[in-house]
């Protein structure tokens, strides 16, 4: 079915382009925007090393969220850790030969898929059950969860119920690197799964998924607490000093 193959190939080239350029644009924008004042949420580390640790705890353990809300933390962490493992597991479709580590985590990756779904379900339930979270949820917040939920559900379906020719899928993906089109199996669930993933890539740089890069640029988290020791002055502020 060459039409489908072609369609999906172009969709993925397009999605990858949007994803990479959109994200690069945002990261460059964040980098170029100055932070004129020292605003770390204190107590904060007084040296770089401490900040690296603080950030690591935020990224890996969601430390602040843990202090903020245990339920959201539990579901959120399940979802993200699941997503992380699932993504690692998926690398076997993208890398040839498959690294030993990726081979090793394959079985865990499947459990992680379930963890991710449980996490998503919990997060979604909060959007209906907790009045405060219901109040702040916009359409887009539900759609985002629906999108991820459907990606996860269709993925698990492919794994357990409606197997596809996974070797062919990998050949298709690897082919894309060299601009050769190898046939993509025309299984509806697979096509659905892939279409949603392309969608996710496209919306990533234009949605709240920017929280992933955003965290690294958050001045309340990434600044060193040393304002008395070191003068912190950005370009626009120093211009005020030369009237």
């Amino acid at each position, binding site marked *: 079915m060459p039409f489908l193959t072609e369609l999906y190939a172009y969709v993925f080239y397009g999605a990858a382009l949007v994803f990479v350029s959109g994200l690069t644009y945002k990261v460059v924008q964040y980098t170029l925007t100055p*932070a004129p*004042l020292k605003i770390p949420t204190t107590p904060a580390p007084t040296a770089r090393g401490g900040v690296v640790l603080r950030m690591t705890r935020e990224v890996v353990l969601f430390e602040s969220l843990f202090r903020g*809300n245990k339920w959201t933390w539990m579901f959120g962490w399940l979802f993200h850790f699941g997503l992380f493992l699932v993504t690692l597991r998926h690398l076997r479709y993208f890398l040839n030969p498959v690294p030993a580590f990726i081979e090793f985590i394959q079985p865990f990756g499947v459990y992680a898929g379930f963890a991710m779904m449980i996490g998503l379900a919990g997060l979604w339930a909060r959007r209906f059950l*907790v009045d405060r979270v219901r109040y702040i949820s916009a359409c887009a917040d539900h759609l985002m969860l629906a999108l991820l939920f459907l990606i996860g559900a269709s993925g698990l379906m492919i794994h357990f119920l409606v197997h596809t020719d996974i070797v062919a899928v990998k050949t298709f993906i690897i082919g894309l690197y060299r601009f050769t089109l190898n046939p993509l199996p025309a299984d509806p669930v697979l096509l659905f799964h892939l279409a949603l993933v392309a969608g996710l890539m496209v919306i990533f740089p234009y949605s*709240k998924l920017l929280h992933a890069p955003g965290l690294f*640029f*958050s001045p309340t988290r990434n600044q060193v607490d040393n304002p*008395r020791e070191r003068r912190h002055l950005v370009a626009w502020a120093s211009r005020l000093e030369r009237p």
Partner: protein
Amino acid sequence: MAKATFKVPTLCQYPQVPPVTPGTMAHSSPFLSKPEFQAPLGFPGELVENWQERAIEKMGELLTRYRSLRVYLDSCVKCGACTDKCHYFLGTQDPKNMPVGRQDLMRKVYRRYFTSAGRLFPKLVGAEDFTKEVLDDWYSYFHQCSQCRRCSVFCPYGIDTAEVSMAAREIMDAIGVGQKYCNEIIGKVYKIGNNLGLPGPALIDTLEGLEEDVFDDTGVHVRYPIDQVGAEVLFVTPSADFFAEPHVDGLIGYGKVMHESGLTWTFSSLASEAANFGLFIGSYENMRKVALRIREAAIQLKVKRIVFGECGHAWRVGYSFLNSLAGPWDFLDPRYPVPQHICEFTYDLIQQGRLTLDKSHNDDKVLTFHDSCNVARASRMGDTPGGQFEIPRAIIRATCNHFYDMDEETIRDRTFCCGGGGGLLTDDLIELRVKGAKPRMEALNNVIQEKCVTHMVAICAICKSQFTKILPFYGMEMDQVISLHQLVSNAIILTPRDDDADDDDGAQGRADDEDDAQ
């Protein structure tokens, strides 16, 4: 008992998260600024004609100036972790007082004008045009945020609603919609030197009076000098310290500590105000102008060090921003941090054993301590993170026998704002101030019940004024809040100096001396 035209919240023993009740505080807005208060700050006098265009333009400018604003408007995932953290939400139930609800007032405008998703699918992502209704909401709810940063502690990305509120106020000022309280006060600082508009001669008078009072009390000549060129230490303190209760008892304490230190020191009539309201309105330019007075005073008076009195937001600007705004401080003594907090100063003397303290002088009180939000979450004291919690407590423990902390969930970096910070300490917002104090009042009430606490110690002029005003609404006494340095003042045993026995330069009367000779 204070009379209220609104329902004062009932205090519960266990903190409760109230149900969301939209619109309960929609009527709350501070008085609008007038043209004569706007002009000195460089803002248009009233709502400009093409305000919408100008506001969007200003927002665009701020987005390129402040990384915090840009990243925070993009990053919120609506996880809800912050929704039950703001004292104004807990006290009013209004969902626009949930930190994320407040941010969303700006985020919806940001999305509409600055993001592709909001331009293409406004409904889907909750983007909205900047209409007059939205502007009214901004004015109301961005003046229901005390910029206390409690929300930023719990947000997984550290989103600080204070940054958003400050930006919103700056945008509103740029289109002529200013808040009277803040802007009038900044004007007074420019014209007279302090928030209260106390002119130099009045300050000199007050300080002379204090010298007499302290001499009457103690028989020791403690000096409260002002504008003394060549003093070693410039002392910058909030102007409320000069005369209002309970602030002034703290100031008396500063003087005694300075006396014991043996250093020469001075206030300055030019920089007779530690607070910097430029912070509240988010205006870097105004904040800088206010801060530069301190630099000017330090140069004029040829001091070597700068010490700040008890004031929360002032300490934030002093500790975190002063170096950026008015530095470098290379002309001061490099052995000391610039500025230093009076608590750091007093603590050092205690550590060195240079203060003689008799704790029993405070035995008539059972104390607890209120961590001021901007000291707790936006600054530090001493060399180690968290010094801002330990140093004041160490001073309290050194000066009294009965001290109990309030519930852990409500102190240190999780402290609740007094309800009057961030430029809201004005009578036109009294309902908000009373309701916003609820979480703090609950924790206080619990230690009063369980530990028989009689007084709450604070190290911030705004906290002290706010509590003095609102404690009666909750059936407590206004004088149950006291300055930290009042405790020090009570406990300290002063060292007489040579000149105490002599007749002095006339400031003290004969009769006083006789009284003291007993």
